[in-house]
């Protein structure tokens, strides 16, 4: 499937959910925010929110240092 991730289009295997995409990308679910087509996906919904071809996603790690 084709997905736009953080501004860049990429080909991925068929991935069922937002959580599967994070796992595919090697991104931990901890303190990560995801926007799917401009809407926030709650962390507890990562593993049930379906992905669709040509979805646009922003994956943001919370940066805690200071």
């Amino acid at each position, binding site marked *: 499937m084709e997905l736009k991730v*953080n*501004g860049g289009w990429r080909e991925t295997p068929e991935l069922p959910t937002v959580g599967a995409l994070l796992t595919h990308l090697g991104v931990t679910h*901890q*303190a*990560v*925010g995801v*926007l799917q087509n*401009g*809407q*926030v996906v*709650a*962390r*507890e919904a990562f593993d049930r929110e379906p992905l669709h071809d040509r979805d646009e996603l*922003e994956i*943001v*790690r*919370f*940066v*805690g*240092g*200071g």
Partner: protein
Amino acid sequence: MKGVGGDPGFPVVRDVDRVRRLVALPDVRPAMLDKLAGATVAMVGMGGLGCGSAPYLAAAGVGRLVLIDPGRVAATDLGRQVLYGPADIGGLKVDVAADRLARQRPALSIVRYPVALTADNAAALLQGADVVVDGLDDGSTRDVLNAWAVGGAAPVVFGGALGYEGQVTVVPAGGRPCLACLFGSVADAPAECSVEGVLGPLVGVVGSLQAAEALKWILGAGHVLTGRLWLVDLFTGAMRVVAVPARRGCPVCGATEAV
């Protein structure tokens, strides 16, 4: 004219001169400067981000800074916390920072709290602050600040810096959106620069932007970063701004409100 306050012998800088370049901005009117002089900004944490933001807030003419940090200056701070030098090691950060900021602007009013902010003392420490600037180095206390903003008392200018990555967003008083809309609780977020390292100038980049957002909020000038997250990666030099809408059912700011 010779000085009063901390530095006899130095010329007194009139506030009208100090802010001349500020009021030269097309959307800043002289009357707006009264807002700055009357404003109180609470600095929660005087590490890298606090050192990056406080001097610009002082320089711009903010009336009062409340410095909150229980820490003492350590040798490992000196590579990025630029208000401190070797002679300050072992001293309370709020004391050393207050001395530096008072030299920078003798008319600045400074309140020092050498304690850690907690859910229990937040109201006592932050009461009266018009804006809160997050200079923390942990996630769980940021949850406390987020709740403070959502409670409606004052906006919080959040900042974070770790490795080469930084981010800034402003949670308005009342939230919608708030930090938890995107991230949920950030109590478990990676925050330890002793583990992940940090490029010194990163905290200056992020802290300076926090100061800019705080000043814009006080002045009512420009477009404040509410509902948007500013991201920088100094490794590649890339910057992005991501729009973050309020989340329906956000457990902190949206439990009873539809978007």
